[in-house]
């Protein structure tokens, strides 16, 4: 019970932090309004999916270094398939790409289970492979996205029964994010499978002895991670209108947000809400730096330093609980 309270306390604290950063933003830029919030939500979209992808595997006690490369591959695949194709064709592209993510993610899991090579090495190798595949699909940024897909993240979602001023604060991108995450996460969290994912992350041996199918659960966790990563890649293509074969800074960002979101890097703890709020905090800090008219390159340095500091802090509190000299 105390652990439950502590976890919820962490999420609540993060939420307070988010509100604090919002207030700071409003102070810096008194004109910060719903439109800016909409662009924040659009900017958060790929990061949030990358974080969700990382969260699932970290909870299962692993780590996925191929998240950013998977997003790049998806982005170029979707963009080059939709290039010059009809609007209706995109209806086929989206499920195809989602299936591709499930398969590639599951491949990560299968390789880890079958070769018994540690997850960090397997996903590093997959990072090379997926990056190479992305370059093969599209050598330089290009391609296109269907108009209806682009429209799905622009503007606000009309929600019946809500006054206009409140409706303006519900951007479509945010709705899309919440819907996509909830569709996968809520049934998972309530199912036996979700419990198994937490179990193998918390103590693999105990889970195995309690009859949890460890190998199968691990593969499913990586498959889900692939699915989320693919959603991130799709959202990249949708919001930029093109596909880029070079992976963005999503790997480090996802790990930083996972740590900040209260998910222990050792596995078995935390949820999805914390990391998602954390990613909003990190993005909003970036917005603030931009609003303060700081050179974008300096912003990149500060952002990188914040992420490294967060990861260092997370690692530090992880080792504090362990006896001296214990191996991770």
């Amino acid at each position: 019970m105390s652990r439950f309270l502590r976890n919820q306390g962490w999420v609540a604290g993060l939420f307070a932090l988010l509100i604090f950063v919002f207030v700071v933003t409003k102070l810096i830029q008194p004109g910060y309004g719903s439109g800016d919030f909409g662009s924040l939500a659009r900017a958060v979209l790929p990061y949030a999916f990358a974080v969700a992808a990382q969260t699932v595997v970290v909870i299962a006690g692993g780590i996925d270094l191929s998240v950013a490369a998977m997003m790049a591959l998806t982005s170029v695949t979707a963009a080059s398939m939709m290039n010059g194709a009809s609007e209706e064709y995109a209806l086929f592209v989206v499920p195809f790409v989602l299936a591709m993510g499930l398969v590639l993610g599951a491949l990560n899991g299968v390789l880890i289970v079958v070769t018994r090579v540690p997850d960090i090495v397997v996903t590093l190798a997959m990072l090379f492979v997926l990056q190479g595949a992305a370059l093969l699909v599209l050598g330089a940024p290009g391609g296109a996205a269907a108009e209806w897909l682009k429209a799905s993240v622009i503007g606000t979602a009309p929600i019946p029964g809500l006054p206009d001023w409140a409706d303006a604060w519900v951007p479509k991108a945010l709705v899309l994010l919440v819907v996509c995450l909830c569709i996968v996460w809520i049934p998972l969290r309530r199912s036996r499978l979700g419990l198994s994912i937490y179990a193998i992350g918390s103590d693999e041996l105990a889970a195995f002895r309690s009859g949890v199918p460890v190998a199968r659960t691990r593969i499913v966790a990586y498959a889900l991670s692939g699915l989320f990563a693919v959603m991130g890649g799709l959202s990249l293509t949708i919001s930029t209108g093109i596909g880029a074969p070079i992976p963005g800074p999503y790997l480090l960002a996802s790990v930083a947000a996972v740590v900040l979101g209260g998910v222990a890097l050792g596995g078995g703890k935390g949820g999805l809400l914390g990391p998602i709020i954390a990613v909003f905090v990190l993005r909003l800090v970036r917005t603030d730096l931009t609003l303060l008219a700081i050179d974008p390159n300096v912003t990149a340095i500060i952002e990188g330093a914040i992420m490294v500091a967060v990861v260092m802090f997370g690692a530090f509190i992880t080792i504090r609980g362990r006896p001296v000299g214990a191996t991770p």
Partner: protein
Amino acid sequence: MTDIATMPQPVSFGRRLKRFMADRPLIPLIILLIILVAILQVLRPGIVNERWIANTAKFAIPLAILAGCQTMTMLTGGIDLSVGTVATMSAFIMATQIVNQDPAVAFLLAMLPAVLIGFVNGIGVGVFRVHPLIMTLGTSLIGTGFLQVYQRTVIASGAKIPDFLNWLGIGLTYGFPNALFLFVPVAVLIVFMLNRTGFGRLLYAVGDNERAARLSGVRYWQVITALYVLSSLLAGITGLLYIGLIKAPSLSLAEPLVLPSVAAAVIGGTSIFGGRGGYTGTIVGALILTVLTTLLTILQMPEGGRRILFGFIVLFVTAAYLRIIEDR
């Protein structure tokens, strides 16, 4: 494993071969190198001559030094992904500072970021216990940001490659590349350090069993910090050598060498989990990769295909390596 113990059977040829390969990893590697050169000679008769060998050595040397960084960090169970950024930074700073500064001052300025990044890596990994992969990825992101800011301050002064680096990078003495003057001492130093000095033994000890090493009084964080500073320094020197070879300072100069350097160390028989391996194998690994790259270029395999191949090589070799260890 248990059936081997209960059912004594004659040692099969395959197992003998595996043992042989595990005991003397250099011999199969050299055989592989010779096979690759032979294939090259068959595909392009007459290509293998004195000039080709000198050229191959020239391109293999920067890769081999960077792979040395990976070898040393991998011996402790780590990895250093910031070598590409560090090498690029040193090269870029050298090329721009030499315009107005004394060569010695420019050299010191070029080495400064290398030492700093190495130190931060070492503190993050050794004290805060961040996973080396995440830590070095983060510092390389920050380093790239700094480089971009720096680039704009020197845009007016231009850049030039000092004659000395040119001589070192592309010059030949009696048909031997001058880069050997740098590489041979570095290689001898690394091999000597790993095999004959206390520091080298500490690296193996930490990687083999961190807990035992700590309990026997190894000051973990000091060893790790020294290691990452050393690794960064070597990367910085590689950058200077590489700029003399490529002769075009850019912000992504040495980045394409990072993944191959990891692959070269893995192929050379250094375990990515720490405690096993050595530098001689890595040198052969770097040669194999350079010849392989030539081969793939002749076969007109695009960059993407090469990356995919490198990814699978890392995965396959690591998995094979695990099998060999388990069988013993």
